[in-house]
C-alpha cells in the first residue's frame, strides 16, 4: 500500500507549516518520513538543507518532536524524564534549561511528580517541554493540542507563536482543529489519500477554493478527496 505518493513541498525557515487532511490522508506518515522513522521507497528528503538519508543524526540533533499520541515514561518523574532527554540531546547546563522549559509551559510545580500522575493537559505540556529542551531549529508537532482544554490549548498556541516569533523556529504542524490552524499557520498543505491537494497561505487557499473557512474546505476534501467548490456552488476553481 502506498501511504504518501508524489508529495513535494518546501518549508521556509521560521515558518509554521500546517499539514492537514482527514484521517488516513498521510500527515503522520509524512512526519515519520521527515523524522527518518520510515524510509521512502523513492524521492529525496532534505531537512535544514541536509539530505536526511546521509545526515539523519545531525538533523535530529537540531530538531525535536511532540505528538499527542506519544508519551514520556509514566513511572519517571517530570524532572527525571527531562534529564534523560536533555542528556540524549547533549543539552548544555541541563538544570537551568529544564527549569526554563518547565516555566515556559507553566508546569514548574510538577517537577517532582510522577509523569503518570499528571493530568492530560500537563502531560501534553511536558511533551512540549521535551520538544523544546534542545532549542530546536525545526519542530514537528503532531496534533499537540489534541487533549487540551480550550484554555490550556490557547495558552499553548500563544506560547508556540511567541517562540516562533522570537527564535524563528520552523514548525511542521498537524491538527484537526482548523481554527487553530488559521490562527497559527503561515502556510498549509492539504493532503488526501497520500497526495497533495492544495497548498498556500490560508487566505490563498480559501480564495482559490471559494470556501468560507478551512473547516469547510477540510470537510469538502474529506468527502470528495479533492478541492471542489467547498461551498457546493457550480463552476468553482479546482
Amino acid at each position, binding site marked *: 500500500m502506498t501511504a504518501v505518493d508524489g508529495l513535494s513541498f518546501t518549508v521556509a525557515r521560521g515558518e509554521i507549516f500546517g499539514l492537514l487532511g482527514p484521517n488516513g490522508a498521510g500527515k503522520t506518515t509524512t512526519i515519520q518520513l521527515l523524522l*527518518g522513522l*520510515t524510509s521512502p521507497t523513492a524521492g529525496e528528503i532534505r531537512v535544514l538543507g541536509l539530505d536526511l538519508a546521509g545526515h539523519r543524526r545531525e538533523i535530529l540533533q537540531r530538531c525535536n518532536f511532540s505528538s499527542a499520541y506519544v508519551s514520556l515514561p509514566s513511572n519517571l518523574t517530570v524532572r*527525571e524524564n527531562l534529564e534523560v532527554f536533555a542528556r540524549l540531546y547533549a543539552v548544555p547546563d541541563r538544570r537551568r534549561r529544564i527549569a526554563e522549559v518547565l516555566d515556559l509551559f507553566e508546569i514548574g510545580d510538577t517537577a517532582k511528580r510522577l509523569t503518570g500522575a499528571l493530568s492530560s493537559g500537563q502531560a501534553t505540556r511536558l511533551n512540549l517541554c521535551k520538544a523544546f529542551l534542545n532549542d530546536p531549529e525545526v519542530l514537528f508537532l503532531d496534533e499537540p493540542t489534541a487533549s487540551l482544554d480550550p484554555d490550556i490549548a490557547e495558552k499553548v498556541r500563544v506560547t508556540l507563536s511567541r517562540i516562533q516569533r522570537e527564535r524563528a523556529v520552523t514548525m511542521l504542524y498537524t491538527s484537526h482543529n482548523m481554527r487553530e490552524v488559521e490562527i497559527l499557520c503561515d502556510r498549509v498543505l492539504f493532503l488526501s489519500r497520500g497526495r497533495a491537494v492544495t497548498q498556500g497561505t490560508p487566505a490563498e487557499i480559501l480564495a482559490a477554493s471559494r470556501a468560507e473557512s478551512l473547516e469547510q474546505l477540510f470537510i469538502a476534501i474529506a468527502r470528495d478527496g479533492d478541492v471542489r467548490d467547498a461551498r457546493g456552488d457550480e463552476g468553482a476553481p479546482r
Partner: protein
Amino acid sequence: MTGRIAAMLLRYLYLYRRSAARVMGVVFWPVMDLLVWGFLTSYLEKAAVPQPVLFLLGAVIFWDVFYSSAQAITLSITEDIWGRNILNVFVSPIRVSELMIATSALGCLRALASAALLSLLAALFYGFRIASLGLALAPFLASLLLFGWAVGMMTTALILRYGQAAEALIWGVPFLIQPLSAAFYPVAVLPAWLRPVALAIPATHVFEGMREVLGGGAFPAARLAAAFALNVVYLAAGSAFFAWMLGRVRAKGYLARLGLE
C-alpha cells in the same frame, strides 16, 4: 556518545528505583529459584545422591546471569513500547548501537547484582561457595553475558517487527534455550541427535565447564574458548539480524506504529 548511552542507562535505572516489579526481577524470582533448587539439593544429598547435585546451585546462579542479560535488553525496549515512549527515543539523536550498549550495560549491572545476591545466599543457606572459584569465575560470567546480549538483540529485532504479537518471546526464548543448553544436567543426558544442537549454544560449554571446575577438574580452557568463539558468531549474527530487521521495519513503516497498536 557516552552521554547518550548514560542517558538511556539512567532512564532504565530511574525505573528500578521505584518499580517493585523490576526489583522483584533482580531479587525475588532468582532468590525463589535458588531456594527451590537449594532445598531440592539438600533433600537429594540426604537421600544419599552423590555430591555433584551441588552443581545445581551453580547452574541456578549461572542461568540467572544469562537470563538477566537477555531480558534487560528486550524488556527495556518493550517497556518503552508499552509506555509509548519508543518514538521519542528513536527520533532523538541516539544511534541504535548506543541504545543497544545502554541496555546491555543495564543487563550487566542487573546480572551481576543478582549473581552477587544469589552467591551470598547460596553460601549462607547451603554452604555452596561459588565465589571460591575467584577470578576463574569471570570468563564464565562474561561468556553468559555475551550470549545474553546476542539473544536479547535477536529477540528485540522480532519485537520491533511484530510488536505485541512477539512480546511472549521476552520470556519464552530463554526458556527455549534452557533445556538445550544443559544448564542443570550434562550434555550426555540429552539424546544423541540433540547433542550437536546443544554444543552449538555457547551457554552449554559454560555449564559443562562449570561442572568440571566444581567437580575438581582443571580449568576448562578449551570449553571456554569454544563458548567465546560461538559468542562471536552469535553476536555477529544478532547484530546483523537486528540491523537487517530495523531496516525492514523502517522501510515498511512499522517503527512508527510501535506503541500505538
